[in-house]
């Protein structure tokens, strides 16, 4: 085919690189991706750096510094489609835990020369700064979902990444519910599908890696956890994970913990 291959760029902001690794982890499919997309900018994988504009930008990481807040605007200007990948880019990530406290205190504790640190008060999602065309959830993202999103982009169709609960995936796998049969607290009912219910499949409660589902009733789930014997502190800490700053999780930790839940010690 003489068709021009769309140019792909992969960007990193405040993150652990795990989601970019999911892309490299695609192995077989990665060759196909390279065949259909011109991997123009992907510093994690290649030193080849072709100038923009780009047809598709995958953005990993959250915005935590004034410099990055500026850089994401540039990325947006250079990208026809901008897709965020992972919990950091979509809800601020684990580093958004600092949003619940005073970031200057952390800086003073962690760094020998705090005056060199230039940082924002909060870690925030990419969509808090620029328009985003699609958000792919997960900490880390699921590689099959990533390939699905890229295939959908290449073929001009809607990706199949349902926004319903993890429970549906759990039941499609015919798992026995750990919450009902074992009394294990599980975030599955309020969590966005995508992982295939990995943790309940291995008899653990869901950790909420994919953030809140489309209509997450965290208030009702918290009440049930507490009825089952979980402490208020455990309940708050469960929401204060990789997606702590996502609205449905954040509001519940503030309410249940009365603003003090996570930092009792």
């Amino acid at each position: 085919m003489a068709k021009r291959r769309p140019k792909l760029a992969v960007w990193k902001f405040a993150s652990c690189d795990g989601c970019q690794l999911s892309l490299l982890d695609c192995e077989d499919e990665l060759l196909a991706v390279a065949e259909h997309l011109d991997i123009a900018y992907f510093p994690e994988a290649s030193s080849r750096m072709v100038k923009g504009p780009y047809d598709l930008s995958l953005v990993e990481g959250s915005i935590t510094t004034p410099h990055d807040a500026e850089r994401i605007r540039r990325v947006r200007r250079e990208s026809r489609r901008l897709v965020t990948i992972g919990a950091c880019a979509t809800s601020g990530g684990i580093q958004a835990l600092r949003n619940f406290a005073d970031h200057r205190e952390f800086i003073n504790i962690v760094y020998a020369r705090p005056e060199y640190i230039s940082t924002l008060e909060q870690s925030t999602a990419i969509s808090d700064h620029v328009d985003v065309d699609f958000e792919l959830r997960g900490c880390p993202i699921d590689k099959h979902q990533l390939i699905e999103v890229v295939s959908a982009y290449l073929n001009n169709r809607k990706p199949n990444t349902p926004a319903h609960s993890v429970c549906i995936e759990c039941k499609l796998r015919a798992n026995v519910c750990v919450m009902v049969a074992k009394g294990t607290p599980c975030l599955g009912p309020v969590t966005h599908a995508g992982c295939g219910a990995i943790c309940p499949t291995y008899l653990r409660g869901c950790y909420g890696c994919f953030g809140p589902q489309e209509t997450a009733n965290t208030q009702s789930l918290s009440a049930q956890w507490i009825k089952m014997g979980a402490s208020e502190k455990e309940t708050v800490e469960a929401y204060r994970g990789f997606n702590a700053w996502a609205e449905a999780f954040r509001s519940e930790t503030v309410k249940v913990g009365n603003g003090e839940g996570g930092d009792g010690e």
Partner: protein
Amino acid sequence: MKSAGDRNAGLSIIEREELGTLIDVLGARGYQVIGPVVSDGAIVYDRIASLADLPEGLTDEQDGGRYRLKQRDDRALFGYVVGPHSWKKYLHPPRIRLFRAECAENGLRIIDEEQPQEKFAFIGARSCELHAIAIQDRVLLDGVYPDAVYRARRENLFVVAVNCGTAGGTCFCTSMNTGPKATTGYDLALTEIPDPDNHRFLVEPGTALGAEILGALSSREATPDDETIAEQSIARAVEQMENNTRRMDATGIRELLLDNLEHARWDDVAQRCLTCANCTMVCPTCFCTTVEDTTDLTGDHAERWRRWDSCFTQDFSYIHGGSVRVSPMSRYRQWMTHKLATWIDQFGVSGCVGCGRCITWCPVGIDITEEIRAIRGQINGCKA
């Protein structure tokens, strides 16, 4: 006392071990034999190869949002009720590919999916479950477009029913007239008599094929005593349910719900409902599916998959411009009014068989019978 040869002609007794022979006989006839097994702390349905696979001496404690296995003081093989799985996982699979498509020289080539020639034999289906299968038959086979996937799996089904001798904590089949004794839809029906000195099953054939298979087992004619004991055990299950507060008064239920679409209770239950969809997934009559079309990166290959869907998702009611049922309230109301009211308009029967799964497997224990009592005004404390 009835004498054998009257209305109960054809009742036989097989010894406990002979049930193993039944599994062998069905296997030898080419059936995939499916029955209850213990897995991850619950009794689920899976392949069974011998009597040893069945859950021995176990029962299940069930309540809203709670399920625990417990030891019984006998060696009963069917001393529990229904678990998180239902037979629909075999007849109406959770995920299935419908077809594939390829780019060909002159356009698109569709590759149809071949339906497997599976023959299932279900061991231990309960009366409520037979009613659920009959309901899915109406939904999936009786319409203008019978479902080929369901039909291929349903056609050669062999059913060994078990009459319930113990009711579960969330069972309410007596309210829905669906049990606990199997009355229809089986090839063989068993009543277990777990007497430690003489563990046996009363067997009743329901079809000619059932009678033929029974003929391959070593059995004796049932005595009036056997029959009395079996009837007593079923009566015990009935009594347990009648003493349970968890009953559902189904009189005029269609009108009750349709006349109360704006009842305050819907908002009350929506406060508790997680819109997680577990109730619809475990319900043996819920049949809704969605299709997902996928392509590979090249765009030369496409597939269409079908999977269970639920009216608790927003996608379920998505039309141009957005979702029709945005509020969790409207989604819970859809589920309950469909099960108990509009199902009757659509299919001529209720969509609920009283199996209790949606109560037990709801993570927050929302109880459909309690919601009905609240709408009937039989529960205090419901915000007016």
